Each structure stands twice: as structure tokens, then as C-alpha cells.
């Protein structure tokens, strides 16, 4: 019984980490209909900046994470402004294809440039928090923090979308771009803001990544594919969907890996296929 509880705890906490990273990707797709394949690179850059500042100053990595948020927003904003906006006027299927190619190219470029400038070695930040122990059970406070953060972000962004002008404009752009333009919403700016927010969320996930695991310049595409699966599982564009999708993936991986580590990921992706067969739009897709 203890083992089962521990596996569930580990799975949920791992899922929280996945969800945190998938969150921004889902938001960007929801607003812009763009599958941002460079999302993992933004995560990696968040982790890298955290590592570099931590190595130079020794500051708390989460404080560094907060400090780099404006920069992450700016990075996402200009990414959209210069790479995505020129595609905005194209027909939908052309836009989707072009955005995949452009973001893929950008991902490869960012990875290579980072490798050249900062080195290709694995980088990890040495920071730990004591875990909570109850008999043989343990809960990692660091992972719990990631879970709390993703829950807080889900609620926070939900209210942001409902209550603020930018949030409402963002939703309007998602639902009907022409309608939004007709009522005076600057849809181009809204898209760029969304990319900025997505990039910020990726950067927060990157900080957790570099603290809990390690980062390297070539990790981006691998993690992006995993997070794409999570948002497809949860329903493209659904924030709660990415949270639930992340947790399902984490739980499945955890339980199956206990019996055989080789089947952990396979089982998680089989569940993805099964859910998509039953609900082709994902769990919370509309």
C-alpha cells in the first residue's frame, strides 16, 4: 500500500512538472493556432539564464527565475513580432505548416547558437530543499512547489483571461479573430503578448528543470514533443487540459516504470492514443 501511495505521489508531482512546461505551449496554440516547436528552447534558455546567474551570484534560483521573467516575456514577444507575425495573414493551413517549419528552424538555431556560446555540457543548479518524510513515504518540497505553482498559475491565468481587458481580448482573438478585429482589438499585439506569456511560463519550467534535473542546448525538441503530447491529450488550447494531461502522463510513467522502466514512456503514449481514439479532441478539447 505504501508503495502504491508513494508511486501516486511521485507520479502526480512529476506530472506537475510536465504540466508547468506544457502550459505555455497550450496557451500559445489556443490563441495563435501555432504549434511552437521552439517552446522547449525557451524552457532551456530559462534554465540556462538561471544557471549562469546562479553560478555568478549564488542567488536563490527561484528568485533568479522571477528576475528573468521580464526578459523571457521580451524574448517571446520579439519571437512572435519578427518570426510569426509575417505569417499571420496567410491562409490557415499555410500558416500552420509555415509556423511549424519556422519554429522548427528557430529551435535548431537557438540550440546551436546556445551550444556555441554557452557550451554543450549538461548544466545543473545545485539547490535542494528538505523533503517531507512520513514513515517510508516522502514528498519532495521542490516538486510540491512546482505543483503549487502550476495550480496557482492555472487559477491566475484563468482569472486574467476572464477579468482583464487583455485577457478578454486574448479570448476574443482565440474565438473569432475577425470579430475581435472589428471591435478594435489589436490582434497582432495580443498574439505577441501571448507568446511573451508562453515564453515566461516556459522559463519558469526551465528554472525547475535546471534545479531538479539538468539542461543542455540540444534538449529542446525532445521536451517539446513530450509537451505537445500532453496538450493533445488534454485538449489543444485548454489550460486545465494541460494540467490533467501532465498528471496522467506522470502517473502512468511512474506506475509502469516501477515494474519495468522501459515501458514507462510507451505506456504513457499508449494511453494518449487510447484517449484520442475515444475523444479525438482530447480530454478538455472543444
Amino acid at each position: 500500500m505504501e508503495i502504491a501511495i508513494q508511486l501516486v505521489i511521485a507520479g502526480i508531482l512529476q506530472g506537475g512538472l510536465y504540466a508547468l512546461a506544457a502550459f505555455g505551449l497550450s496557451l500559445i496554440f489556443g490563441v495563435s493556432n501555432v504549434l511552437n516547436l521552439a517552446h522547449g528552447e525557451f524552457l532551456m534558455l530559462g534554465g540556462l539564464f538561471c544557471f549562469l546567474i546562479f553560478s555568478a551570484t549564488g542567488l536563490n534560483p527561484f528568485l533568479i527565475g522571477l528576475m528573468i521573467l521580464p526578459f523571457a516575456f521580451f524574448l517571446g514577444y520579439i519571437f512572435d513580432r519578427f518570426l510569426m507575425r509575417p505569417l499571420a495573414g496567410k491562409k490557415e493551413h499555410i500558416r500552420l505548416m509555415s509556423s511549424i517549419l519556422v519554429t522548427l528552424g528557430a529551435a535548431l538555431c537557438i540550440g546551436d547558437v546556445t551550444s556555441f556560446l554557452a557550451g554543450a555540457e549538461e548544466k545543473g543548479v545545485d539547490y535542494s530543499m528538505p523533503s517531507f518524510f512520513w514513515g517510508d513515504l516522502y514528498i519532495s518540497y521542490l516538486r510540491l512547489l512546482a505543483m503549487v505553482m502550476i495550480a496557482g498559475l492555472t487559477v491566475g491565468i484563468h482569472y486574467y483571461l476572464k477579468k482583464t481587458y487583455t485577457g478578454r481580448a486574448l479570448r476574443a482573438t482565440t474565438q473569432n479573430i475577425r470579430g475581435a478585429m472589428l471591435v478594435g482589438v489589436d490582434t497582432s499585439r495580443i498574439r505577441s503578448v501571448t507568446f511573451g506569456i508562453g515564453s515566461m511560463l516556459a522559463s519558469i519550467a526551465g528554472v525547475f528543470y535546471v534545479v531538479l534535473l539538468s539542461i543542455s542546448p540540444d534538449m529542446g525538441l525532445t521536451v517539446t514533443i513530450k509537451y505537445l503530447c500532453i496538450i493533445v491529450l488534454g485538449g489543444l488550447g485548454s489550460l486545465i487540459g494541460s494540467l490533467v494531461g501532465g498528471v496522467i502522463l506522470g502517473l502512468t510513467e511512474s506506475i509502469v516504470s516501477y515494474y519495468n522502466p522501459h515501458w514507462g514512456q510507451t505506456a504513457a503514449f499508449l494511453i494518449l492514443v487510447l484517449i484520442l481514439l475515444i475523444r479525438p479532441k482530447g480530454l478538455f478539447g472543444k
Partner: protein
Amino acid sequence: MKRKMSVFCLVFLMAVAIIGPDLTWAEDPKEIKIGATIALSGRFKGIVGTFKTLGNEWAGLINERGGIYVKEYGKKLPIKFEIYDDASKPENARKYYEKMATDPSISFFMGPFSSFISNAATTVAGKHKIPMQMVCANDAVLFEKPNYWRVGVLVPAEDEWERLVPIYKKKGGVKTFATITMDTLHNKGAIKGFEEDLKKNGFEVVYSVVAPPPTKNFAPMIIKLRKAKPDVVCIEALSPAFTIGFLKQMREAGYKPKEIIVGHVTKHVIDALGPYAENITGLAYYYDGDTQDHKDFLEILRRSGFTWGEYMESGIRFWAYTRIKQAIEKAGTLDRKKIMDTLWNMKTKIMGLDSFVTPEGYGALGAWPCQVQGGKFVSIWPLDKAVKLHNYR
């Protein structure tokens, strides 16, 4: 007469045109060129990306002394590397070795990093009959198929951990072991040999698991590990991400074994773990000594700007460079077949230790224990020194 002269000239010119290329007087080579690929990008860059500099610094050091003496030409020739980036991919390595095989000025190949990239490269060496001194490659798959044109420098992967067992046997204090292995040929081979060694010496392996390289969630394995309560936890993974992820999660789980062994411990691993890395035992292809080879190795490391502990595989490179130099000197020629014969038969000393090639093509270089002490790598061998210097956690 005039007509006869014209016919003679024409025949002479035709003869020169046909057999001329074979009759040209061969010029003495101006240098000894070694062709190689290194992972200057891709997933292995972090492990070997600095070795282009290391190779050039070694060549620089040898050239400062005039180069390598080749008896056939009666003089020393400078050495030069021609290095391409294989981006950690076998198909790139194959492409570049094929390209270099068309260059007659390249006398020698040096192998790439890892067994699976070397597997691609050795086929090119065999096809074009160009001698190849392999470097970081010692998995059985490479040596199962006969290929005269390649030799290794390392002992088989199964023997890599063999120098650790005597320390625990002599020092005592630990009985049970757990092994966590990344699923690659090399890592599995190394751990298989180590586990057999442990059992032969009366130790018990209480938990053993092989996990795929992209594993990020180690919690299920750590739950089992905590139940098994081993004294020693061994991690054998080519990828530092695997090692760092596992050890950070073991720390989260509060499991404190008496000893942690990391098969491929690098500077980046200890940086990511901070003080937790203290007293991690590892393996390096170097131990302290006082021979001229030791001095040369430390000198090229100094010039390259890193230490043997930061890039463990640098010791393997040095052995391979030295074997190439000794083979050319002993063969006294740049004739490819004669050099290859010499590489197979040469019995020599490097860093005061025997260097030779087994009938299968393996080398004699094994790994020696080292330990992280005071945030730095300390060489702990021979055995008496190891027992004295080695600390449990």
C-alpha cells in the same frame, strides 16, 4: 627520317601519358597527417568537444621536438590533424572518413567517440585499408567481426570497473551493492562485468536496473532502491543528464548510501550536485605518476585549459596519440600496411604501463579509481594508496 622521328615522338608522348603517373618521382612527405572525426556538436560534445584542442596541443608538443622520426626518410616529420565534426552521428562519421580516405596524404585514422560511431568509422578503415587507432570504443560488437585495419586502446567494457572491487575487499565496511545502468551497449557491458566481479568476491548485488537513456523520473526505481537498502549505489551512464537526474532524485528521497560510484563522473556532474558530490567515487583513465608520458600529458592538458578530471576520456586520447607515434617510429615508414602490422604486434610502455593489443583487437588501457575530494578529482591508485585515501560518505 623526319617521319620516323615524328612517330617516335608520338609514341614516346603516349607512353609518358599512360605510364607517367606511375613513374613520377615520389616526393618525401612534408608532414604526417592524421584524419579523425570528433563530436564537436551534438550530444557527445559535452564529453569530447574539447579534444580537438587536445589533439592539436599534443601535435604542437611533438612538433616542438621536431616531430616523429621516420627512418625511411631519415628525418623527423611534423604531425598534423585533419579533424571533422561528426555531430555525434555515425552517418556523418562515415561520410567524413570516406572523404578522408580519398586523400593520399592521410597516413592514419584516429577513431571517433563511442562504440556505435566507431562501428561506422571502422568499416571505412577496413574498406580502404587505412590504419585506424580507435579511442573511446570498447564494446564487444566492434570486435566480433574481423577487421584487420582497426585496433583499440581500451580493455573490454566488461573489465572497466575491475579495479574498484579490490578496494572494497581490502577496506571492508560494505557488503551490498545496487546498480543503475543506462541502456546502452557500453554501460550494460561495464556493469555486467562489475556485477560478476562483485559476486566472485563475495559481495551481494541487491538491486539492479537498466533504464532507457531519456529517463527523467527515477522515483519508481528509488522506491525499490530504498527497500533494498544497499551500502553502495553504482550509476553507469554515458549521459551526464541521466546521472545528475538520478542522484538529485535520490537526494530528494533522503537515501544516503555509504558509497556512491559514478562510472562516467565529469566536472559537469559534480558542479550540478555541489557539496553532495563530495566523496563520490569514479573512474578515470589516468592515475598520478612521474614518467615522461605523465609530464607530457599534464602539459598538453595545461595548454588545452582543462584537467584530466574534467574530461575523463582525455587519458584515452593521450594513450592513442602515443601509440600512433610509437607505431610510426617502430615501423620506420608511412606505409599503411606496415604501420598496421606494427600496431597489432607492438608491445610498449605508456605512462610506465604495458600497452599492447589482444588478438581480438582490444587494448590494455583500463580505468583507475578516483574520488571527488574538496570539490576536485583525486587519483586514488595503486591499491594501498586507494585504501588509504578513499573515503566513504
